[in-house]
């Protein structure tokens, strides 16, 4: 029989205001095995843990139930506290009477009754708890970064600087990501390339960093400390070792009609191409869908002009298999498609553009050589209208429910830059709210208004109507003046919502990292573990976790790197001891469990068993503790109940069911 102590936390008034904690304590003392029960304002505090320590020592407790917040919050805290007092940490169970009780119920009687039942279920479980010892698993001292934008670059650099090898997998032919497409950055108006390019060079040159561009993650198996990843290196058709990056092939390539991805389709590129001049690696790829040689078999000009003989039409996709201890996801974002926002005429007029397109237009290396001009007729626009929140903060399914966070600032940047460079161009910004939380952000926005004369109008635009003369009629409302506005503009810039890179869903599935309804990767804890995925060994960097600007991305990238380094620095990891085990006397050796095990953790061996005096050799399932992650799929598949999960055993769960239904 266990000697159980029950500790009921008030959590200030978070619990105590809705749950009669004294009553829970009193009821706990009636439960079988309970020899001690008390309540305290903050169990997780130093003083609270001291109470637990004292009770364990004085009452010789063998198990603990802490009625408090979610186990996802403080289970570890209380387990550590138990361990310090000499108790096996797995003899602790949490009754979640905050998130699952006090916070959602108002009626004190109901909430108290429920808290008592949750306490009872936890006591029933502890009664059947057994001390568990975690095993050990090794750590492969190498990290994988998925995505080669600023987030991935920064994470890789930080990890490599700490002395661990890092691989970057980038889907496109060059690293650099979204930031390489930007012209200037807020709030300091630095040139984006000027600050990014050196970092790209640094990554390329770093002895511990290996870049797989034009590559994708094919599969991921294993677990924290020991992931095995297959990387598909798509056929580049150019030998990376031979190419000198002279660019002659691109110049001579006769197929030049493909829309440039880098320039957001505002210009075209050749079939053999590097996305932009500062690409890293500076090695082109052949776009086989556009290449005449691949389409017709004829041509081959690039091969002829290449002095280095780097062109290789025979190249095939290659699968590289590599082991990693940690994986950082930095898959970034894209703009949403605007095809469901017909009212803004994006698909009808060339002069209605997105902000990212404007970045390219403003960029000296962009399609217009940095001249601000209308794409329809090349004329300089005199009236520019910016429309905010296109697809952001949307309650229907046309857009996104969240605020994209970066638009207010980049619009202020754009407005300011335009007014600076073209003082005779008027800029009007239609906004709903201007959000500028950040160092020097509001000052930046105010400068746009006060120093640059940008006209900010509170009110969303209802419609953009292209006029026969090429002008754009913008119909908006000024909610402050309470009047409707009809404004003729030469160019309209839409601050389209950003969304996670669509590929992230596939990657999240491979990594078993959880993802929210908007496809942002979920962090382990919104406040306390913002750069870790709930899946151990998976870290989050940049916009894949949520909308962020560059400074935030870089700091998160550093944070993710530190978390990864912390993991890689360990020689061994303690494994979760809540693993499956097969009772050799009950096991049929039928192989059903191995069929459902996602980790290949179950094997079979012929073993001599002594079944109450009958000795025979039987085929028995054996679970590899290091591989088992404790999902429990095998336990339900096993018809004889031989397979059971430590920490969540059949009897424990049944005991919880019984306690709840009592």
């Amino acid at each position, binding site marked *: 029989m266990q000697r159980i102590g029950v500790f009921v936390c008030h959590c200030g008034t978070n619990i105590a205001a809705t749950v009669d904690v004294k009553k829970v304590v009193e009821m706990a003392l009636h439960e079988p095995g309970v020899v001690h029960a008390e309540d305290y304002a903050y169990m997780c505090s130093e003083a609270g843990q001291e109470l637990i320590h004292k009770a364990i020592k004085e009452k010789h407790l063998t198990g603990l139930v802490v009625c408090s917040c979610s186990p996802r919050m403080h289970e570890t805290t209380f387990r550590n506290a138990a361990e310090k007092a000499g108790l096996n940490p797995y003899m602790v169970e949490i009754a979640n009477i905050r998130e699952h009780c006090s916070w959602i119920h108002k009626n004190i009687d109901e909430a108290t009754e429920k808290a008592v039942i949750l306490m009872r279920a936890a006591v029933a479980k502890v009664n059947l708890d057994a001390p568990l010892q975690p095993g050990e698993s090794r750590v492969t001292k190498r990290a994988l970064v998925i995505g080669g934008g600023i987030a991935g670059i920064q994470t890789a650099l930080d990890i490599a600087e700490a002395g661990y090898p890092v691989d970057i997998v980038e889907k496109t032919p060059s690293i650099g990501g979204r930031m390489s497409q930007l012209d200037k950055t807020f709030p300091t108006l630095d040139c984006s390339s000027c600050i990014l390019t050196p970092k790209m060079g640094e990554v390329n040159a770093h002895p511990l960093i290996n870049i797989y561009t034009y590559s994708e993650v094919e599969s991921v198996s294993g677990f924290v400390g020991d992931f095995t990843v297959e990387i598909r290196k798509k056929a580049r058709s150019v030998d990376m070792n031979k190419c000198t990056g002279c660019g002659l092939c691109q110049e001579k390539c006769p197929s030049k009609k493909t829309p440039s991805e880098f320039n957001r389709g505002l210009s075209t590129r050749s079939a053999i191409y590097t996305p932009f001049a500062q690409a890293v690696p500076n090695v082109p790829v052949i776009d086989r869908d556009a290449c005449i040689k691949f389409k017709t078999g004829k041509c081959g000009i690039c091969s002829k002009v290449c002095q280095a003989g780097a062109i290789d039409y025979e190249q095939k996709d290659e699968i590289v298999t590599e082991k990693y201890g940690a994986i950082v996801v930095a898959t970034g974002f894209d703009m949403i498609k605007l095809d469901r926002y017909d009212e803004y005429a994006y698909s009808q007029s060339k002069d209605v553009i997105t902000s990212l397109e404007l970045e390219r237009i403003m960029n000296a290396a962009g399609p217009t050589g940095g001249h601000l001009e209308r794409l329809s007729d090349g004329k300089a626009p005199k009236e520019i209208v910016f429309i905010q929140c296109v697809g952001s903060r949307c309650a229907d399914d046309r857009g996104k429910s969240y605020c994209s966070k970066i638009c207010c600032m980049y619009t202020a940047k754009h407005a300011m830059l335009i007014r600076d460079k073209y003082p005779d161009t008027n800029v009007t910004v239609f906004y709903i709210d201007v959000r500028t939380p950040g160092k020097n952000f509001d000052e930046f926005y105010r400068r746009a208004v006060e120093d640059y004369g940008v006209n900010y109008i509170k009110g969303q635009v209802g419609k953009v109507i292209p006029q026969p003369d090429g002008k754009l009629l913008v119909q908006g409302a000024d909610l402050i003046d309470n009047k409707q506005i009809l404004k003729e503009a030469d160019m309209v810039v839409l601050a389209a919502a950003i969304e996670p890179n669509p590929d992230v869903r596939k990657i999240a599935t491979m990594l078993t990292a959880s993802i929210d309804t908007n496809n942002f990767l979920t962090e382990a804890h919104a406040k306390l573990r913002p750069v870790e995925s709930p899946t151990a060994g998976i870290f989050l960097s940049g916009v894949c976790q949520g909308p962020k600007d560059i400074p935030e991305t870089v700091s998160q990238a550093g944070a993710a790197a530190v978390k990864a380094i912390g993991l890689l620095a360990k020689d061994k990891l303690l494994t979760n001891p809540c693993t499956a085990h097969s*009772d050799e*006397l*009950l*096991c*049929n*050796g*039928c*192989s*059903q469990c191995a*069929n*459902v095990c996602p980790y290949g953790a179950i094997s*079979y061996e012929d073993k001599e068993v002594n*079944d109450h005096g009958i000795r*025979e050799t*039987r*085929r028995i399932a054996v679970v590899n503790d290091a591989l088992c992650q404790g999902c429990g799929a095998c336990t339900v*598949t096993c*018809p*004889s*109940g031989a397979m*059971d999960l430590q920490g969540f055993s*059949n*009897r424990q769960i*049944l005991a919880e069911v019984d306690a709840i239904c009592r």
Partner: protein
Amino acid sequence: MQELINRAKELLADGTVARVLGWKAGDLPYNPEPAYFEKEEDFADFVYNGFCGANLSKYMIEASKLEGKTLVCLKPCDTYSFQELMKEHRVDREKAYIIGVGCKGKLDIEKIRSMGIKGIKSISGAEIEDEAETLTIDTVYGEKTCAYKDAMLERCHVCKGKDHMVFDEVIGESKETKDADRFAEVEKIEAMSPEEKFAFFQKELSKCIRCNACRNVCPACSCRKCVFDSNKFDSAQKANVDSFEEKMFHIIRAFHVAGRCTDCGECSRVCPQGIPLHLFNRKFIKDINELYGEYQAGADLEPRTPLTSYEFEDVEPGIVAERG
């Protein structure tokens, strides 16, 4: 039958097999028992007739542990069970010499009794060689007859076919006996209102005496120790009690064999209370076929069963409520 006996003797004599697992004539005309034959003279009692309904594949679990090969006589439907047991590593194919025996449908003494025939002294027409359409039954209350077909086990009316799934050789001819839809009974229940369904199963299951005959005869229930016998699982119950126990037992048992049950029908054959237990298993089979694609357990050696595999597009459990 003679051909079978001759061949068995031959294989025994030349040392190919160490024993023969077949049926021994009973002391009544209808109760042959599964038996091992190791010596030539044992074969005097060897029998294979319409009453040899028992599925011998389950005995092969124990026989696989014996020295040498065992010759086992398996009817077409039994071979599905054997193959399923192979898949689950419960029998050793190397330890078995399988003679696939022909089948013309097996008889159910309970059906004969339910026609009011009692005091049976002898039965003719059940011999496997006979093409008899009619059974002639001599009783202390006079001679009675009944059509062979009317005395057949339920399972033979919905026979899966007369092909053996696994065998070393086949002896004897078979005759098609399928004349009913395998899922007709299930559909009938599905069409009932919840109240009718509940009343139906309540009535049937109230007869259960928890004798475990269904479980112990079942080739899929091959667990060394059943969860219902195991104290570890907190579910051990030996006898029927007030209410839920039987349903729990039968649902869990059906669930444990779901995707593995070959629908051999032994559970219903042996139930002393005549509970149509196959209706549980067949419901799962029907659902599996409809929701996850046609599947016949024991028809191949593919290790994954419908419950140990999945498709991304599988239907959601809400389908149950939707289809009403």
